[in-house]
């Protein structure tokens, strides 16, 4: 469904939006992330009021460095932001990622990945500010020194997270970053509540930007201030309440998690399962991920025209849904990419026509019900901006049994306007969830926590459906991922950032 809704105002506000919402900085292949705590409020505020934050305006020639700034709820308190303003942010943002046992349980942050084992993000190591530094090859060191120098007065370092040079492959060896939602910058998607019957890659702005309508046609709650309040007149007005100043406008929530990856463990396990056969080993790995190492979707590309996919040849890697593979015979039901984006629509597929739709809406189509176990994806998309860290380990090195010199992993970063409905939902219900899509009891093959279920039944298994027999089952999967830290940040609009740094 499309039709101009008339407002192209987003195009005018690139200068208020931090660039990360629009760009992944693929040309700035070096990056590092600083986690800071405020040690001197005045100095911190002064720096944030003038920090050289990169906006989403396109610049020619491309910049050689970029800086993005995000803050945790504790950080806002540290800056002296009024409590009633902080209360306007979402409950999960204010609670933080590590303080709630129930949250950790849902996210799968248990056992080795429990927050009390984190290096940062829990107890007294909760960062206040996240600085994301991006640089062209060779520029990072100088840029880092400069920023560190500027911040030394106001901030203490909790951690300085280095990243490895951006390539196309993630540490296990798979092409990564292939699938990203496309933001509807031209605001063509209907912003009223309307059922969508086809999978689309185009997402309403409000799914990733606060202050804009989301897929429900509503506005996610964020702090709306009285414009008379100190400095609040510098903030944009809220679209849904023009008499209020919108602190969230052009901002987003940013979720960051440091995921250490056990590359030798991963390949050694698969090698053992494949009995040393290299081809089979790769096939099993691909089955776990849902794409081959080169990014080819296991379910196969089809000629479906999916709205929101770029019209470039290599984006065909995203020209598929799972409609043609309901039993998981080509791409296992529990494969990683299938879990993180089930590519479904609001109603399970069926015959076209009003009557058929009504029957499916009321739940009377038994076949449709079998395919109705996973919620509609469009409400649960993630905009990923992560970067790997640590030295690359080749498959041969992984199998050789040599201990890697360096820790390797992913600094997972995603953006979204509603942490509970997007990140926490995908991580909790789809990734860590052991009953995803009717599976009997298994978590994500890459990220699953492997802890037994409430009835003691193991969840460290991976089922590979086959047409001529019961599911093949890989058992005794070890953990391949350990969470080393994490936090919820607010990535403010630039006017909002200046407001937070200067208001009283």
């Amino acid at each position, binding site marked *: 469904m499309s039709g101009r809704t008339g407002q192209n105002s987003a195009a005018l506000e690139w200068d208020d939006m931090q660039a990360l919402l629009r760009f992944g900085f693929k040309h700035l292949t070096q990056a590092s992330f600083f986690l800071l705590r405020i040690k001197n409020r005045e100095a911190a505020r002064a720096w944030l009021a003038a920090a050289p934050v990169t906006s989403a305006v396109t610049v020619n020639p491309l910049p050689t460095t970029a800086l993005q700034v995000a803050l945790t709820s504790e950080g806002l308190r540290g800056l002296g932001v009024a409590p009633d303003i902080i209360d306007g942010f979402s409950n999960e943002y204010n609670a933080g990622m590590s303080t709630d046992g129930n949250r950790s349980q849902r996210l799968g942050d248990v056992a080795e990945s429990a927050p009390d084992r984190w290096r940062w993000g829990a107890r007294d190591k909760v960062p206040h500010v996240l600085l994301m530094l991006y640089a062209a090859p060779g520029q990072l060191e100088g840029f880092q020194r400069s920023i560190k120098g500027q911040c030394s007065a106001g901030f203490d370092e909790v951690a300085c997270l280095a990243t490895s040079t951006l390539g196309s492959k993630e540490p296990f060896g798979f092409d990564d970053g292939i699938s990203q939602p496309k933001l509807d910058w031209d605001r063509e998607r209907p912003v009223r509540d309307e059922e969508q019957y086809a999978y689309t890659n185009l997402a309403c702005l409000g799914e990733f930007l606060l202050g804009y309508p989301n897929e429900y046609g509503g506005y996610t709650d964020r702090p709306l201030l009285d414009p008379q309040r100190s400095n609040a007149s510098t903030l944009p007005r809220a679209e849904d309440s023009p008499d209020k100043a919108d602190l969230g406008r052009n901002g987003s929530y940013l979720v960051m998690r440091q995921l250490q990856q056990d590359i030798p463990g991963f390949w050694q396990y698969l090698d053992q399962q494949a009995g040393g056969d290299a081809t089979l080993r790769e096939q099993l790995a691909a089955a776990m991920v849902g794409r081959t190492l080169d990014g080819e979707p296991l379910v196969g590309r089809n000629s479906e025209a999916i709205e929101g996919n770029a019209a470039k040849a290599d984006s065909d890697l995203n020209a598929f849904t799972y409609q043609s593979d309901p039993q998981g015979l080509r791409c296992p039901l529990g494969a990683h990419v299938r879990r993180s984006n089930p590519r479904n629509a609001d109603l399970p597929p069926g015959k076209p026509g009003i009557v058929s739709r009504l029957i499916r809406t009321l739940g009377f189509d038994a076949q449709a019900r079998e395919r109705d176990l996973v919620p509609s994806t469009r409400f649960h998309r993630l905009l990923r901006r992560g970067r790997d860290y640590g030295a690359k380990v080749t498959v041969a090195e992984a199998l050789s049994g040599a201990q890697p010199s360096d820790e390797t992993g992913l600094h997972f970063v995603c953006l979204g306007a509603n942490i*509970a409905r997007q990140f926490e939902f995908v991580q909790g219900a789809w990734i860590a969830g052991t009953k995803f899509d009717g599976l009997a009891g298994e978590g994500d093959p890459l990220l699953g926590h492997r802890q037994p279920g409430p009835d003691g039944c193991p969840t460290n298994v991976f089922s590979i459906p086959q047409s001529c027999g*019961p599911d093949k089952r890989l058992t005794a999967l070890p953990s391949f991922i350990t969470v080393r830290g994490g936090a919820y940040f607010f990535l403010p609009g630039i006017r909002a950032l200046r407001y937070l740094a200067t208001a009283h």
Partner: protein
Amino acid sequence: MVVAPIASGREAGLRAVLETMNVRPGMADPGNALLPFDEFQNIHFARLVILEDATVGDFAVHGLKAPSFPKHLVFMGDCDGPSRELLADMSRRADAGLRKIFAHCEGFDVQADLLGWLLAHDLPVAANYVNWVGRTVRQAKQESALQRALSSRVPREEIKSDTTVQQVRQDLVAYAKVEIRAGRLNLTPPEPTPVEWQMRKFLNAIGIPLVGLLALPLILVLLPFFLILLRIREKSDPEFYPRPDAQALQVLRQLEDHDVTNQFSALGSVKPGLFRRWLVSVVLLLIEYACRHIFNRGHLGRVQTIHFARWVFIDGKARIMFASNYDGSHEAYMDDFINKVAWGLNLVFSNGIGWPRTDWLIKRGARYEQRFKYYQRRHQIPSQVWYKAYPGLTLTDLQRNQRIREGLERADMSDAEALSWLRLL
């Protein structure tokens, strides 16, 4: 559902007593000293809830003073067979424990007939949803054990020929027989449904539509007036959906996600006025009918994750309590509600004070995502004690296990059917 007001001054003591029944907050100890749930083989779910109404002040949005409702203790469960029999069984075998709990209630005489008291306080349920009518606890447990046994035994290679499919199936059938004979597995044949129950169901099935048919002329005449009154009210009824308090949220979440299934207890006041009271009564009557005769085989509309749910009027018809047991996280439950069955929610809950604005009774309302999420969390109350008879099993598991058992017990199958059956394991 037993509902009794708590005697004044006894609430703290009652909370302490209820805490002793838990392994941890949110998880009852199946063998607890007061009411050992696992000794009663026909209880699917049970809970004890103190009805702490944080939203009674909402009457103010209608310009009315909040009535003072007593604080009740609710004891409810979902069981096989008539609830009367279960209560009688419980009062026989858990007499001391139940007395200790209900001693905190008004008007409970320690000397009195416990069963009589329980039955006197057993409120009728306005509408009751059962995911699969007739599936017993015993069946769920036995079929789960069967699934585990067969699943670990079935060979997981590709089956090369059709004859092998049948062979593999026969091997498993034989294995199951051996296990049953040795007493390691059990598949008790289901008890026949009492004829009386079937008769009452049949009469209800045709009776309600018959009454509807007879009343049809009257309904048609009244319809335009009803719609006008409805629209007037829908446009003017105040909404009230403030953000729930962070502390209250914390308390609720502490009780969640210890199993793959969660409990949900919510309490709300019906909007003032006869119109709303009658409307919600009719709606619940229709929902009861639909649940009893239509949605009794695995799904409530499109929602396939609710084990049991009920709506009960309390305090005359001033308040409604809603209680359910559902699979998955709370966020997923709300997602299902908004996306799959918002129209159903609106039918009932738009009659509650402060519900987000609806159009024509079924549109919008719960589709206002943020308003709905705040509303339901604010009306949700913690369940002090919650018991589930089959930890770790979701409805998908239960249904798969049913099909596994059915397939096992069939004399013979076509090759395609046998393959489908094997693929369930």
